[in-house]
């Protein structure tokens, strides 16, 4: 029962890691840059959902839509202000800039939203139901489904729509994409919007299970980055699979070894996996170009 319970909550948590990590993947694949404010974007989704849906009393679907739209706008802003100016000048300071941007957003959110954890109500996380002898909130089962569905939808959108294919084209060969008339700069901006949107979805999904706070994204963002890296940041299915695996390993470590050792076990596993596969579990090194 311990293991089963750990599996269920691990999958739920892991699906969310996967979504946020997918955000790292999207920008990396398109532009070789990463938004280290992803965790903050996740927080932003949850905080905006709470502020609009609970404090302002908007109907929840509207609040969620608005929150996600604003998350995407945040992604555009990050790309425009914290990434593009540095990439243009050949500086890698975008790394530091996005970290600082996350710090600013977290602290700004603390003042705008409040310093206390708040609950984002959801009918799916009120009453537990009993399944296989486990008491679970329906949301715990819904989350991995939604998470995998979002990842699958993203996959399908990118394969089956013209704009999706254009984005894939940029990922695979930016030069050739430009020759097709695809605006690569816009694709990069869109990838940032997409990545923060994914983080926002994760924040909104996980908030009813945990709570909404201004710093909920900090550790989550780091773990999701670990997931993206371990999965091989260039591989979308790898990242999602690594997310689920990470969640499960974390939950199993808690269940079997005890919570105090969880982070040690999990991060040791991260180092171990990178020592064995320096380009991630699903990343490919490609032949060496000399």
């Amino acid at each position: 029962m311990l293991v089963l319970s750990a599996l269920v909550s691990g999958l739920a948590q892991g699906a969310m890691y996967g979504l946020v990590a997918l955000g790292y993947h999207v920008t990396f694949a398109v532009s070789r840059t990463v938004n280290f404010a992803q965790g903050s974007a996740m927080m932003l989704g949850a905080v905006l959902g709470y502020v609009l849906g609970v404090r302002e009393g908007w109907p929840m679907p509207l609040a969620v839509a608005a929150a996600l739209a604003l998350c995407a706008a945040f992604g555009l802003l990050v790309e425009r202000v914290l990434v593009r100016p540095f990439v243009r000048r050949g500086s890698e300071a975008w790394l530091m800039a996005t970290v600082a941007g996350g710090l600013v957003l977290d602290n700004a959110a603390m003042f705008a939203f409040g310093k206390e954890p708040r609950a984002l109500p959801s009918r799916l996380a009120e009453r537990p139901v009993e399944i296989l002898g486990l008491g679970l909130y329906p949301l715990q089962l819904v989350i991995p489904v939604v998470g995998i569905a979002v990842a699958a939808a993203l996959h399908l959108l990118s394969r089956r729509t013209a704009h999706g294919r254009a984005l894939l084209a940029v990922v695979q060969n930016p030069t050739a994409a430009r020759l097709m008339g695809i605006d690569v700069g816009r694709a990069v901006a869109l990838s940032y919007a997409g990545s923060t949107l994914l983080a926002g979805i994760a924040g909104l999904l996980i908030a009813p299970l945990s709570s909404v706070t201004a710093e909920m994204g900090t550790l989550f963002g780091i773990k999701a980055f670990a997931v993206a890296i371990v999965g091989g940041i260039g591989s979308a299915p790898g990242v999602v699979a690594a997310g689920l695996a990470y969640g499960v390993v974390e939950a199993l470590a808690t269940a079997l070894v005890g919570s105090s050792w969880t982070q040690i076990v999990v991060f040791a596993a991260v180092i171990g996996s990178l020592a064995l596969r320096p380009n991630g579990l699903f990343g490919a090194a490609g032949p060496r170009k000399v």
Partner: protein
Amino acid sequence: MDRRPVLHRRALLVALALGAAAVPAAAQDPVKVGLVAALSGQSAKSGEAITRGLQVAIDEINAGGGVLGRRIELVRRDDESNPAKGLVAARELVQREKVAVVFGGIDTPVSMAIVPFANGAKAPFMGVWAAGTPITRNGAAENYVFRVSAVDELVDEALVAQAARKGARKPGLMLINNPWGESNEAGLKKALAAAGLPAAGIEKFGNDDIDMVPQLARLREGGADALFLVANVQPAAQVVRSLDRMGWPVPVVSHWGPAGGRFTELGGPRAETVDMVQTYSFSGRLSPKGEAVLAALKARYPEIRTLSDVTPAVGIANAYDAMHLAALAIARAGSTEGPAVRAAFYEIGPYQGLIKTYARPFSPGNHDALSREDYIFTRFSGPEIVPLTD
């Protein structure tokens, strides 16, 4: 850079220029008191509560003419829950701002980092939150550390007594994996041993964990018939939600953490069954002092609308009483010099405070103004915290 020193210099220049040396400039300078606390990050709400408690008390004192004929001014620093930053901030407050008393410490390690400095610099340090036992019992020959707050060891004894009262024979421990949890692990073990009760198990969890079922399941298998809970509101809420999912109706006796936030909003109905130790509650019938403080809070902080906004109440109440006690000590000392103020702390009382009437709050053998008798057990009822009546 702070503009204050510049202003001072300018004021001095103006004073010299006018030859108005007769104005006792020093007497017009406010008496500064400092606060070192986590004002950002996860504990920001607690830092805010302490600020409010201190400020309301300072407003009252200043309205009554201040202390030593001077206004009191609060200077605050954010320690980010980092002991090194807390130490730097305390040094700045003492050595540069020349505060008369440093208030502080939400996190025990931050307070422990400041303690040796405070004793060495002969600067009175008044704890208003962190409950680590060795903060005040630090073994210094000249101890400058005082406290108006709970003391972990005493709280743990109270928790064990409360659990025993509810018929517990083999309680389990659910502790947050941080210094506070670690401090209470030691205290609870000691208290359990003293009461002759075995522990069903000791389980830890992280601040961001959202599923405590594995830990709780192990405690249930270990035969736990009651749980001690040491955690802040967010993980504490996850503990009761996990209990709810497991359908395990075990009684829970908790340290004061859950009272620091909206426990019932976050934890659901099960949260109302948790007994929490408190030093003060603004709910129910208040003393005239309580009414006055509540009114002052509402007047000064318009965002406080209902009782559930007055949180964490212990932070406000501890800080409020501590500020008044410190002002009394300064007044009694007749100066803001550390050694004089320290000596005066032993002489003050009785003082009718918010939490209780302090007959003689401090003595050379006791630097804690609150003791076991001052702890009350409470429960949430909806958004409010109400004292247990039994």
